[in-house]
């Protein structure tokens, strides 16, 4: 027996197919980040709603054969299969067996089959008695038609919907945080209701024709205290009326108390829920920029990125700044990027580049260092003081920008070399149509493997300023970024894929050129 158990467990443990299948179902049913889960959830919600609709329809009308078959067999079968799969994936039985086996062989004692079976049974029982499993089971029951009372369990199918909708779960989780307050309130309400009921019972039993037993009194008390006040039972004695006045006042107090408890639970949890939502959104982003720190520069950079339809996430510690960013429509998250749990929140493979843009150089250095030790993605950082530029670069930033320095350069250029300044501002300003732009030579396009003399730039009304090549040629070149830039390149230079052409021209001509290039490579 034990040998058989261990054999089966090992077999399952090494079977790729078994594990893949189990993982697939685990993801489908339990992993919120799994992309197909939402389709599954949606499908189940439709099934549940349709079956509840059929129940309601059935009250007055008779079901057609198709609907009957659908309701009894199809829906129920799906529910049973789901229940069984959940039962299956709740835990790994083979782990229990293998653990016991390892333990027994390690400690050199006998394999305890009884203990193992007990443990397996306990685990599975734990599943069966969990609230959601009970709901699932009750939702299956109505299929047994002869017992009409079972049909009311159909409504448990609606509870099943909770399983498939995350927001409802969030709601319940929030309510749960105020469990103590709500239970206290409930006890208090129960207590007052009981007293109210008791008092009216003493005063009006048999005096009031509507109160013929203690249940009537309790019912009246609850209807009054909840401020519902049907009026089917109303006090007729003066004592009863005075009591009613007190009960109504108490009722108003209770209701506002309950409302405030729930409302405060929500406000307390709001930030968490928001963070959760942004985290989820961050998970969904395929490729994005990470911006650490919200400053004036961040605001401008983010606006630029948004204009280019790029995705990005801003992280800052200051809640006010986050709020401001959110108001501007940016995806912003309150978190400490230097903390491990924040770093783990992101899939760094999906991050294009990282910006570190706080107003504090010490923080910038620390963030850069933390990120650089975690990932080798390119980091662009700000040094607010020129003296810190090198330190931040040492910390691992690929580019360090000092706003004061570059604006001073800008100013000195304006003074010293107005021509260059004018041209540069014209090229970089957004309202000018003349642009310098770079075009990469795409494989198999009309540029690939061609000599410059074969390309008619005049036709596109573009001026070629230079070519950036990976390899060094026998010509004068300027080196940057480990590549070689040929200014005013000779006509016989041949282009290869990956080379970058630096062109100047009207933006429309440049775009047309790029378009033609793309087209020719297809």
């Amino acid at each position: 027996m034990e040998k058989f158990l261990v054999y089966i467990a090992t077999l399952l443990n090494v079977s790729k197919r078994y594990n893949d299948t189990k993982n697939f179902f685990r993801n489908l049913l339990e992993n919120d980040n799994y992309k197909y889960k939402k389709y599954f959830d949606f499908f189940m919600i439709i099934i549940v709603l349709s079956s509840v609709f059929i129940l309601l329809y059935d009250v007055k009308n008779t079901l057609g054969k198709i609907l009957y078959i659908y309701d009894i067999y199809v829906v129920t079968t799906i529910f049973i299969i789901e229940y069984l799969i959940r039962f299956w994936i709740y835990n790994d039985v083979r782990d229990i067996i293998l653990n016991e086996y390892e333990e027994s062989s390690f400690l050199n004692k006998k394999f305890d089959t009884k203990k193992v079976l007990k443990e397996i049974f306990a685990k599975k029982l734990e599943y069966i008695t969990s609230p959601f499993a009970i709901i699932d089971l009750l939702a299956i029951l109505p299929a047994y038609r002869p017992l009409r009372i079972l049909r009311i369990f159909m409504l448990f199918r609606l509870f099943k919907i909770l399983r498939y909708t995350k927001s409802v779960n969030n709601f319940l989780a929030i309510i749960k945080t105020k469990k103590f307050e709500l239970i206290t309130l409930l006890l208090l309400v129960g207590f007052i209701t009981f007293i109210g009921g008791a008092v009216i019972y003493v005063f009006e039993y048999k005096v009031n024709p509507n109160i013929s037993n203690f249940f009537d009194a309790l019912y009246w008390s609850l209807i009054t205290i909840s401020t519902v006040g049907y009026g089917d039972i109303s006090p007729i004695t003066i004592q009863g009326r005075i009591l009613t006045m007190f009960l109504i006042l108490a009722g108003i107090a209770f209701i506002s108390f309950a409302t405030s408890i729930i409302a405060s639970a929500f406000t307390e949890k709001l930030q968490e829920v928001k963070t959760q939502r942004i985290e989820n959104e961050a998970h969904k982003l395929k490729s994005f920029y990470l911006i650490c720190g919200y400053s004036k520069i961040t605001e401008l950079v983010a606006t630029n990125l948004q204009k280019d339809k790029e995705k990005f996430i801003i992280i800052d510690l200051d809640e006010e700044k986050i709020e401001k960013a959110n108001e501007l429509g940016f995806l912003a998250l309150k978190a400490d990027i230097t903390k491990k749990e924040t770093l783990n929140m992101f899939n760094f493979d999906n991050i294009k580049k990282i910006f570190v843009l706080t107003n504090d150089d010490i923080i910038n250095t620390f963030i850069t260092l933390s990120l650089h030790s975690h990932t080798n993605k390119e980091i662009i950082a700000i040094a607010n003081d020129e003296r810190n530029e090198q330190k931040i670069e040492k910390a691992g930033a690929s580019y360090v920008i000092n706003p004061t320095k570059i604006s001073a350069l800008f100013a000195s250029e304006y003074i010293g070399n107005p021509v260059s300044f004018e041209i540069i501002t014209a090229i970089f300003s957004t309202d000018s149509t003349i642009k310098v732009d770079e075009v990469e030579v795409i494989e198999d396009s009309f540029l690939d493997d061609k000599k410059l003399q074969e390309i008619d730039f005049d036709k596109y009304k573009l001026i070629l300023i230079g070519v950036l090549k990976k390899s060094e040629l026998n010509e004068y070149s300027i080196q940057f970024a480990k590549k070689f830039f040929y200014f005013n390149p000779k006509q016989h230079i041949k282009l290869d894929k990956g080379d970058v052409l630096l062109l100047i021209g009207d933006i429309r001509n440049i775009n047309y050129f790029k378009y033609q290039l793309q087209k020719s490579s297809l």
Partner: protein
Amino acid sequence: MRKIILFGYGKNGKAVANYLDKKSFLLVVFNEEEKEEAIHDGYLDIEVYDDKILDEDLISIGIKEADIAICMLEDEARNMFLALSIRNLNPKIKIIAKVEDNEYIHRYTLAGVNQLINPYEITANRIDSILNKPVTLEFIHNIVFGDNQLSFAQIEIESNSFLDGKNIKDVNLNELYNIIVIGIVDRERSDKLQLITDNKLDGGDVLVVIGDIDEIERLKNDIKGEK
């Protein structure tokens, strides 16, 4: 020689001073702290004024004869007031001013500032260029700040020079001189840069070129020589 006055020796003023020739400008500071720092950094031509600089003071430091004023006070309101006072005294002067908040741009323009410098915006644009136009950025960086021989220049075509009346396509300047003509400023029409690929050149037109500094000089000389 052009007369340049730099106002303020705070973070931004200091950075600008760093890029200017020490003897080429007059530095005006507004408190003892800035003065001490400026002396420490080796500036000699310093004037100190209290927070309020009066029109008389501006005149006495020669604002009316100056060509360029650079307003780099840290305080936005005072900086703007200074720019306005300068413009008021000298309608022709070129004023460069620092602005840190986009909200104030319009007001500075009203105050008569020629060139606004917004450190944040420049930084954001720089980041944008790193992302979208790295080669362009490197190229410009090399031209502007590098010790390469490349530079932008404007060359006026004199009448009867060898370029007058020729089509830009035919003269082949990029092979003869290793310079690239990127545009033309037609002074009669507008001061704006226009691209040329296939234009006829006339006397009085100004060519905008990039190229080797020596080659640019050679072209300039050739234009003059053939006159």
